[in-house]
């Protein structure tokens, strides 16, 4: 879309664009270029010289069983977070759409986790499930469940998934509720008059009409689980036990800042960039389609 009537001149718009372009250039393009450059080079042990090694860092990363394990962990983690957060968000939105009394209070409180940092969500859940002091951990032990996520890989994964999904429910709830409220009431009334039960109305009318929102949210949730959950992992498990919760973003940070393996970390960064570009492209293809048909 373009405007018909515009102002003339180029100096003024250039000045207006300058600050944003400058920040973008220095802090986005320059480091991205550095990452790509670094990813095809290797430093010697003393950091004195670097040489071009082509795709060697990439083949090393992609052939590394630890990297592949981390990729698998990330996939499992992201799917679990997305399914849980989307399911809960949809359930609460459908219910909030049906109530009249108390609707404002339900909505306000369900929004609260949006304001809470993923890292803080991690701390709140850590406090509940810490094996030595957590109230839920103690309750679980009394029920005969041997709860110690510091030793048990599955329990560690469960805990970080819960904490990460908890924070994301608000966002999904909000979008599903907006989607539900944009469905014309006449459509639902007509089907009710035809004798369709609420369950049938949901699956034949509401659910298909929510499909675009759901797809958009699925991409957003996966991006969130991939990139914004570093704080959850760093606070709750530090990637452990035995790297069982080491997602890709955590590994880039760990290998680069703790392990100081710059070539590998850069190659991992470039792979992550490719993943974000892919996800963003999917998202925008979908948005274009929605603009055409909505």
């Amino acid at each position, binding site marked *: 879309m373009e405007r018909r009537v515009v102002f003339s001149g180029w100096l*003024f718009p250039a000045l207006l664009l300058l600050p944003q372009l400058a920040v973008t250039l220095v802090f986005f393009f320059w480091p991205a270029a550095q990452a790509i450059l670094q990813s095809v080079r290797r430093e010697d042990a003393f950091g004195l010289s670097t040489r071009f090694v082509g795709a060697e860092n990439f083949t090393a990363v992609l052939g590394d069983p630890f990297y592949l394990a981390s990729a698998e962990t990330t996939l499992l983690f992201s799917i679990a977070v997305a399914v849980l957060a989307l399911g809960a968000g949809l359930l609460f939105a459908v219910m909030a759409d049906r109530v009249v009394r108390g609707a404002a209070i339900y909505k306000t409180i369900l929004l609260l986790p949006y304001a809470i940092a993923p890292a803080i969500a991690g701390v709140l859940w850590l406090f509940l499930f810490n094996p030595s002091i957590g109230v839920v951990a103690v309750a679980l032990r009394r029920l005969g469940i041997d709860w110690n996520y510091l030793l048990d890989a599955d329990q560690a994964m469960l805990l970080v998934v819960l904490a990460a999904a908890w924070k994301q429910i608000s966002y999904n709830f909000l979008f599903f509720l907006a989607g539900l409220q944009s469905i014309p009431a006449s459509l639902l009334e007509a089907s009710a008059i035809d004798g369709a039960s609420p369950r049938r109305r949901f699956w034949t009318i509401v659910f298909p009409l929510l499909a675009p929102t759901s797809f958009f949210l699925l991409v957003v949730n996966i991006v969130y689980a991939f990139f914004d959950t570093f704080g959850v992992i760093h606070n709750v498990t530090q990637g452990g036990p035995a790297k069982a919760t080491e997602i890709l973003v955590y590994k880039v940070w760990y290998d680069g800042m703790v392990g100081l393996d710059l070539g590998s970390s850069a190659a991992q960064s470039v792979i992550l960039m490719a993943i974000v570009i892919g996800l963003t492209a999917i998202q925008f293809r979908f948005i274009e389609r929605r603009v055409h048909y909505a």
Partner: protein
Amino acid sequence: MMVTARSSAWVPHAVLITGLMLVLFPVYVAFVGSSLTASDILDAPMSLIPGPHLFENFARALGSGTVKTSGEPVAAMLLNSLVMALVIAGGKILISLPSAYAVVFFRFPLRRLCFWAIFVTLMLPVEVRIIPTYKIAADLSLIDSYAGLTLPLVASATATLLFRQFFLTIPDELVEAAKIDGAGPWRFLIDTVIPLSRTNIAALFVILFIYGWNQYLWPLLVTNTPSMTTIVIGIRQMIGNGDTQTEWHIVMATTLLAVLPPVLVVLLMQRWFVKGLVEAEK
């Protein structure tokens, strides 16, 4: 109005109340934790009824922090977080509103290229350019400074896109009228476009304030001295490796202090924020 069977009317309430408990329980337990003593908590399981030490714990957190954070008071961390959130939110709006205005209301060479250059930054979050961005911040001696904490996060494709979308809906007649009145692009921006964008600016401010306040990875990299610690990072340091030395009562008081400002912003500006969020992502 649709008729709902009476027997099912309680189901939505039951589900929603479960939802509220799910949201509030972790926060409530943190609140109780912040009102107990260290030994009350270590003597697991701690009580679920608030104790009498709430004000004492908050005062200690705000005034002197914990041993693990080198006694850095949480009040100072709150100030760092506030500066970070305000500069990021204000900065993003301040640089993306003019750039969107330039892209929408002018025709000049390389206009599309400029727009795309801003747009693709959506695909380069800090998380994927960690080490090189850190290196650049170090080269520009931005480590342990407010500039280092905020500048790399200030460019925002989201805000630019939102303003662009809104500017495209401003009627051509308004631009023509301004031109007839002899108003140049600067006057039109100040007298017409910015006043019209007030709601969008408010909505965006809420979203960006929360984004800024909740930053984790970048502050973790770019700050090392205790005096530059933000509150979200401070909590991480207070927990350490979660051994018996962890002063959980102070950690929980600090956690509540870290949650309070963004929660208040969301509550007070709920209407704008909801509208802005749903529209920003369209």
